[in-house]
């Protein structure tokens, strides 16, 4: 079986068009990340050079000296700015960014971030206490569901603490970036469309159906398709991570995800690196479902164009539905929701399932898993059903 999967994979990736597209789209991806980086950072190079340098100095475990340094530099810049005695000439000596006003903006940002993260434990403890009070109130009122919701809030936000301070600019940009998703989709459609259809088109199917391992071959083809999706996805997602890490000097991967301002109220209590893995896994799950659609259509028809057009149309509809239609059920069922999965984890969101609060983010994941099983089973079934039909 492993040999068949290997040969199927070889067949998929031997297509020169796919290989060339893979290489070129990977380069395009890096170029796009760089162009986005250049749009912000290169434009204000002196500011961002200072930004990365100062962050490098103040990053790490909480340290009184580092805090004092930031506060002192902020106060110093603020005093000059308040007095209005600062010069507007560039490259002033004794400044970090070249301008005193730039220093003021930089240290104000760092100070605010530090302050928020330093007091994060207290803020969350207060929130957890509020939730505990609410749970007791709802218990007294006999509202079991809201009691459970508040208990869940209490559980999610208690015992949180931030032990270190790191720059989060690069990571925020990384989690916002999803151009690679488009490129992966562009690549997956032509990669998977011929999987079954081509066997029909080149009349290979007639030969295959008389082989003893025909049924096994269908399963292998589907598995090879899934592995191909994962390989393509991993190439691009890894490329995103490495390029962002290099360009934005990302560090602090072991910090909790809630140290990023966008995930301040996230229900997840995992490290950034774990979330990166989770994010990639969920994206891959989405790709596997869309790839499943592609393979399913390919198993139904004897023409290569139809699965290509149908997969393109389905992907486009799902993407546009995700962008324009805000309906709970549609979002849950749409695998495209998993591509921008950050919004699922940013806030505390629960859905009532039989009067039990369930984290809303688990619903699209569960739906995608079900869709995946359904599509892959159907694909194997339809390819084998064809065999039966032809025998009959």
């Amino acid at each position, binding site marked *: 079986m492993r040999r068949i999967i290997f040969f199927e994979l070889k067949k998929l990736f031997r297509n020169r068009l796919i290989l060339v597209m893979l290489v070129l789209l990977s380069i395009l991806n890096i170029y796009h990340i*760089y162009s986005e980086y250049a749009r912000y950072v290169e434009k204000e190079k002196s500011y961002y050079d200072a930004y990365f340098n100062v962050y490098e100095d103040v990053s790490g475990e909480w340290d009184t000296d580092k805090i004092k340094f930031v506060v002192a530099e902020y106060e110093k810049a603020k005093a000059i700015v308040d007095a209005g005695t600062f010069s507007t000439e560039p490259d002033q000596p004794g400044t970090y960014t070249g301008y005193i006003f730039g220093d003021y903006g930089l240290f104000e940002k760092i100070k605010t971030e530090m302050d928020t993260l330093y007091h994060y434990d207290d803020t969350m403890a207060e929130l957890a206490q509020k939730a505990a009070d609410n749970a007791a*109130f709802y218990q007294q009122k006999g509202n079991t569901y809201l009691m459970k919701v508040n208990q869940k809030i209490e559980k999610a936000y208690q015992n949180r603490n931030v032990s270190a301070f790191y720059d989060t600019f690069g990571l925020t940009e990384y989690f916002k970036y*999803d151009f690679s998703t488009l490129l992966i989709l562009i690549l997956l459609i032509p990669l998977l469309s011929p999987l079954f259809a081509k066997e029909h088109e080149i009349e290979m199917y007639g030969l295959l159906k008389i082989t003893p391992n025909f049924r096994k071959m269908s399963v292998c083809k589907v598995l090879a398709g899934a592995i191909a999706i994962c390989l393509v996805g991993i190439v691009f997602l890894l490329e995103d991570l490495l390029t962002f890490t290099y360009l934005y000097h990302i560090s602090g991967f072991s910090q909790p995800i809630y140290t990023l301002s966008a995930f301040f109220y996230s229900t997840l209590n995992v490290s950034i690196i774990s979330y990166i893995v989770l994010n990639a896994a969920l994206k891959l799950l989405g790709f596997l479902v869309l790839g499943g659609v592609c393979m399913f259509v390919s198993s139904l028809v004897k023409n290569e164009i139809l699965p290509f057009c149908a997969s393109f149309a389905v992907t486009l509809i799902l993407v546009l539905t995700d962008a324009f239609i805000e309906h709970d059920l549609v979002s849950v069922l749409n695998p495209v929701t998993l591509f921008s999965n950050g919004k699922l984890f940013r806030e505390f969101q629960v859905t009532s399932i039989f009067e039990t609060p369930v984290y809303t983010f688990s619903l699209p994941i569960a739906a995608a898993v079900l869709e995946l099983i359904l599509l892959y089973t159907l694909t194997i079934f339809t390819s084998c059903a064809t065999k039966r039909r032809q025998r009959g």
Partner: protein
Amino acid sequence: MKYELYKLFVKRRAWLLILIFMALRLITVFLQPNYVMDYRMEMYHDTYMEHMKVLEGKLNDDKAAYIAEQNRKINELLKQDTSVEAYVSGEITEEEFNERYRQRNTGYQQQDAFEVINEQYQNVLQDPEHVYFIYSNGWTGLIGNEDLDFVLLILLMLLIVPMICNEFSTDMYSILRTTPNGGTRLFVSKFAVGMITAVLSAVLLFAVEVIYFAAACGLPGGTFPLQSLAPFANSPYQISIYGAAALTLANHCFGAMFMAALLMCLSALFRRSLSAIFIGTTCVLLPFILFSESIMKYVFPTPLGFLLSCGFLKGYFPVTPFSSQFVTITPKQYISTVCISLGLMLMLLLIGMIAFGGKKIRIKKTLAPVLCITFVFLTGCSNKSPAPDFSGFVYDKWSYQPVNEEFSVVRDENNVACISYTKSGELVPLIHDCFTDQTDLNLASMTFVDGETVYYLNQYQNYHYEIIALDTRDFSERSVHEVEWSDNTEEMDMLFGLGFYLPKKMQQDEVVDSFFVHDDQLFLSKSNGIYWYDLNSDRQICIYDKKADDLAFTCSAVYYTDETLDVYRYDIKTRSAAKLPIGKTERFYAVENGLYCKDLLDGEFYFVNADGSQKERIPNFSEEHFLEENEA
């Protein structure tokens, strides 16, 4: 060639496909929002067209005088003294008072309609020789749109690609190769048929658009200069609108031919429909996505620019998105692009001929996508009112908070909305949400108590309001009505890291003044009228389309005053409104069988029956006492 035409149009029923796509084009043109059209011309169509009868064409002294005269008339209408003092003091009669109000409202309407004319006038004044007054919606919709015609693109793919690829997939090619005319000559014939089909498709689809816009908006003033149309105000071409439409059609045809040539060449090279369609689509869509805000999508020699067409005539683009600096596509650049594209088409024909002729072509199959992506790299894709006093049972002031026998809703000293229990005096916060600031005055800014349910309004002006029903027995909540909107500007949104514009949201701000719930029927008084919503079916009825001055609800009727302070009663059962013959009213309170109203002239309180009959004066009426009594 004749046989190829016969094969395509008769055997493969291309005519049927073209007809289907014409119908599809009609549907898309009907459904697709057209951002370049000025909606105000349609909103005030009758008034606008009346003015246009006089103004259409080149500006002259008479027209300038007409505009000045109309502006003066509107200002006069708006200056009408509509204060109630003149009426109360007896200086004017009721009829005169009402007439003044009517005139002022007419003035407001005319002002809105004339705003479009005034804007056009300002544009005309900048270049009176080349900018004329015109009702432009039909023309801008037809030639000012920068959307890619996907219908034409798909039609071309379905018609052109199989012309070549079918010969390979059916193995007909090996037979054709053995015939004397089956090589390059056959390809040239196919190429010619492809060109004819492309032109025919482009012309027919354009004709559908012409018919639609001529029927929907009309296409007047075709002989006027192109600069008369707002999107083309900076156009470098001194041509008429008819000329511009012809040029647009020519561009579409050329773009379709270019696309057809590309598809045919790719089909001959790759011999597989999928590859040809994939690379062909990439060549058009990739620059369309990457250069969405850039001039590059026009000057880059792909079929894309010609299929979009509008930009060649427009003549200016921002250097980078949102930049205030503009670059132009000059006529010279346009001609250069056409020449380069013609050269490319010729090259595509030659490559196709060689490939179809069976000669070994040394161009690697992988070169096409390489070239495509390299082009993208070379071009630098990085450039890429406050609430009114409201009387009746629903009172929006906290001191008159709605109550039932057990509790009332109040705000405590920290401004937290609370339920105050009458017997125990206990204060329980209304909202138990860990993530919201309970002291936020936008939360529970209005409440309405119906039995044991408290309906409260969370209102964030300018984008969102929501009415939530809270069951006070177990404090469970459900949202019963929610409206979200944005301002009237275009919104930039991101999809896969690429910016795109969301359609213009036309919805005006809807500030809720008060609401009333009865039997799953929600009555809302908003800044744009009084509305009745059925909470079970989401059905909506507009009871009154203007902001009500004063308002009260009962279970059977809605009472409101119009701008002239006359009271109307809207019967919920019969769904009809009737003016009550009780004269002008300063304010009123409704009860199930009638109204307590304060007369505008004598300042006395009267009780009138629900139908407005039997107006009976109530001496020494105390509003405060009345409200307290009703609270109890």
